[in-house]
């Protein structure tokens, strides 16, 4: 057990080291693509904490990306603070927002929770539109970063951290508490799990990483406005990538982000007009044929026609 764990950690460290060396050999275009994959993977892994492990499908996680982006952006531009302060502040702001809205809305379940989170994200966008300090509808222009590789390593660092948190959830008492809440909240309470506290911590963690990613994102794309950082579609993407890869698994959301971002990139360069349609078809096929995600299929090596048929039967399709 321990030996296996050390070996896995070694493999993970080697993979991260390899990726970290990529900018030395890859073209600037590829580096930009990888940064985008990092961003999507961070968001998917963040969503996984509340949606995958805890079973609370948040449709408003983009609110945390947005508040992270704006907090970091405002501190960089209006307060002229260094990124080393502005970025953690963005993460902290998202964490506090998630905890504050989580306390009341995590009492809701299923559809009601989904709708409430959607409402939070839309409300945040309207607030930002109507406040002076955010630049309202005209947006915020960021200072120019001197080293473009800064974004690559910041995103990589955040991705490693959020993946580590997911790994910890899969192997810790706290994580088992979240999974128990997902599986049956009444039983979880009866077993002594402080569900309200656990859910709020999970939501806050999920928010904090989205906020950190948002801060880097704002600096990276150099200009933000409310429509750019509070897009509902971004939350939908988090959910699709996490579910595609395997919600509630450690590496599933990461894998989902990588595969879907690659597919999306290929489609948009090859068949520009139909890219969105293809993307939609792929999502539908995946949900039909691998409802538990890519990681589950790989783990069970269920590639054969018989395995696919068995999955379809099991899910009564």
């Amino acid at each position, binding site marked *: 057990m321990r030996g296996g764990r050390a070996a896995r950690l070694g493999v993970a460290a080697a993979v991260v080291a390899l990726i970290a060396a990529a900018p030395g050999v890859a073209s600037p275009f590829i580096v930009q693509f990888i940064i985008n994959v990092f961003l999507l993977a961070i968001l998917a892994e963040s969503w996984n904490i509340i949606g995958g492990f805890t079973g609370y499908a948040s449709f408003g996680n983009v609110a945390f990306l947005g508040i992270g982006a704006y907090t970091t952006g405002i501190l960089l531009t209006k307060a002229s603070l260094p990124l080393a302060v502005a970025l953690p502040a963005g993460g902290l702001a998202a964490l506090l927002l998630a905890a504050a809205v989580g306390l009341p809305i995590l009492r809701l379940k299923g559809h009601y929770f989904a709708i409430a989170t959607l409402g939070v994200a839309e409300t945040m966008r309207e607030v930002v539109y109507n406040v002076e300090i955010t630049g309202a509808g005209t947006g915020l222009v960021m200072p120019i970063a001197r080293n473009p590789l800064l974004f690559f390593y910041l995103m990589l660092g955040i991705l490693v951290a959020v993946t580590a948190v997911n790994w910890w959830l899969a192997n810790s008492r706290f994580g088992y*508490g979240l999974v128990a809440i997902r599986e*049956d909240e009444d039983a979880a309470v009866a*077993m002594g799990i402080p569900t309200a506290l656990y859910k709020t911590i999970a939501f806050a963690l999920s928010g904090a990483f989205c906020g950190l990613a948002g801060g880097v994102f704002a600096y990276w794309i150099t200009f933000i406005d409310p429509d750019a950082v509070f897009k509902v579609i971004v939350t939908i993407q988090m959910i699709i990538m996490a579910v595609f890869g395997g919600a509630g698994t450690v590496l599933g959301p990461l894998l989902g982000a990588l595969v879907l971002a690659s597919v999306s990139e290929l489609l948009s360069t090859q068949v520009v007009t139909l890219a969105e349609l293809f993307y939609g078809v792929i999502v539908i096929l995946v949900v039909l044929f691998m409802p538990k995600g890519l990681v589950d299929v790989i783990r069970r090596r269920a590639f054969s026609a018989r395995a696919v048929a068995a999955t379809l039967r099991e899910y009564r399709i």
Partner: protein
Amino acid sequence: MAILEARGVSKRFGGLAAVSDVSFDLHAGEILGLIGPNGSGKTTLVNVLTGALPASAGDVRFAGVSLRGVPPHEIGRRGVSRTFQVVKPFRNLSVADNVMVGALFGARGGTRDVTTARRQAEEILDFVGLAHRAAAAAEGLNVPERKRMELARALAMRPRVLMLDEVMAGLNPAEIDEAVVLIKRIRERGVSLIVIEHVMKAIRNLSDRILVLYHGERLTEGAPEAVLNDEKVIAAYLGRRYAEAARA
């Protein structure tokens, strides 16, 4: 000494009095049978005792301390466990992981280490006779296995008081005999039990005392033989045929 005391406990749902003014003591090391017809308030009483539902009136004291206003998870942390009549497995987890969650949480003083908790879960699965299914997914268990897992999960919480809500429903006679033996062994571990059951043979065999509920009220309480031969209990719940069969 009473480990659990209910005093004037009532639970109303709107105009319906599901439990009315019920008082009783559960003594340390005792098995208290809780019987009554369907809808008499047995499960509601357990829900109130474990804090899953707030009482409309009355008080419950555990180890001398009032549980009024104590959140349900905290009642579990203090050492009160229960099983659910409609079992609530963590479906996508293995049987061992289900029980492990009980060991990781449950009453204070347990382990916080996953590896230790898993070992404890295996011991408890062995104790309830489910060790051979440890690695199976919980959703794949049959009814008797689900009941055993529910029991194992509650036991893993290291309870001082354990409430079993119809753990024998759906079991065949041989399985019921095994369950009776198992519950007696749980009591030998120093656990006090409240056992809700419709299987009279098991209740008579297990209980030190029996409490009878009828329309949410306490009909009577006492030694098994006295209660099961009580005319009121026969009229309200057991029925003539049971009484004649028992006498024959």
